[in-house]
């Protein structure tokens, strides 16, 4: 069985090693996500540095905890919380990232997916903006994931 990593406030070298391991594996993916959120490469790089520097021992433990699922998704979730301030300043709702995965979605699916994933909007907020009920928004989101999956397989 894989031994669970433990990090304490005093074991900074091991925290650094853990951060480096995360950086090596996921920095490109995370930077891609941040670029889509802030829409500025230089600002995104600054956020990337801040996110990796600000990771605390308990955050790392949470990210590496196998019970919490994918390491990248936990790291992205942490980054999303850190980018909360940026999310609050986003007013435009129709920002469509040009890539061959989300490009396969229709306009409505892109609005829902990007609104939730990149712009940090809530389902209730999107439902209000698009004049639809929350169930419909969830179903549109589900359709978006089906498109991503069909591209993956």
């Amino acid at each position, binding site marked *: 069985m894989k031994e669970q990593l433990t990090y304490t406030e005093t074991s900074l070298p091991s925290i650094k090693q853990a951060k480096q391991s995360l950086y090596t594996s996921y920095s490109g993916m995370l930077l891609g996500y941040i670029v889509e959120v802030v829409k500025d490469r230089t600002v995104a790089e600054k956020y990337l540095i801040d996110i990796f520097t600000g990771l605390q021992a308990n955050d790392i433990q949470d990210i590496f905890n196998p019970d919490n699922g994918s390491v990248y998704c936990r790291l992205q979730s942490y980054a*999303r919380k850190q980018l909360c301030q940026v999310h609050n300043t986003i007013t435009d709702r129709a920002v469509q990232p040009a890539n061959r995965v989300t490009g396969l979605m229709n306009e409505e699916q892109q609005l829902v997916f990007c609104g939730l994933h990149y712009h940090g909007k809530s389902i209730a907020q999107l439902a209000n903006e698009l004049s639809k009920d929350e169930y419909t928004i969830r179903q549109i989101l589900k359709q978006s994931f089906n498109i991503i*999956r069909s591209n993956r397989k």
Partner: protein
Amino acid sequence: MIQQYINSGILEAYVTGSASEKEVEELMRMKTEYPEVSRALQELEADMEHLARHMAVEPPARTWDKISDSIDEIMLRNKHVQPFIEKEEANPRSTGRDNGQQYIEVEAESSFMRIHKAWKWVFAAVFILGKVFLACAIYFYLENRQAQQQLQEIKTELRKIKP
């Protein structure tokens, strides 16, 4: 029932960070209880990773160095703070413990001193005596100056009388 829950879109909301706290709690419970939910969640996380790989942007070469420098700075700062903490632990000057909390007596430098109230009469007496001495000093100085002037006048008169 479980399939209905999986199809509800809550799992997708969770991986995009838009599920409410209540929904997250429910999902965590369902995940441990039903392997189907756990598998569906793993699939969605794999979808997110797939999307992230497509969107990946390579950071500049020096980015890790900057992060590493910041971490080293924190380590260095902690090294400076640690000896003080250890010193306090070795020689605790605590006044007591309350509900497991330890209070450390802080000795602050103050420019004030505490004295007995009786000293105010002594200071008043010293102040009044100081004033009396000052008045006397002025009085005798003026007297002395007047005497000197008179003496000078007498000397001048004497010179006039003597041919």
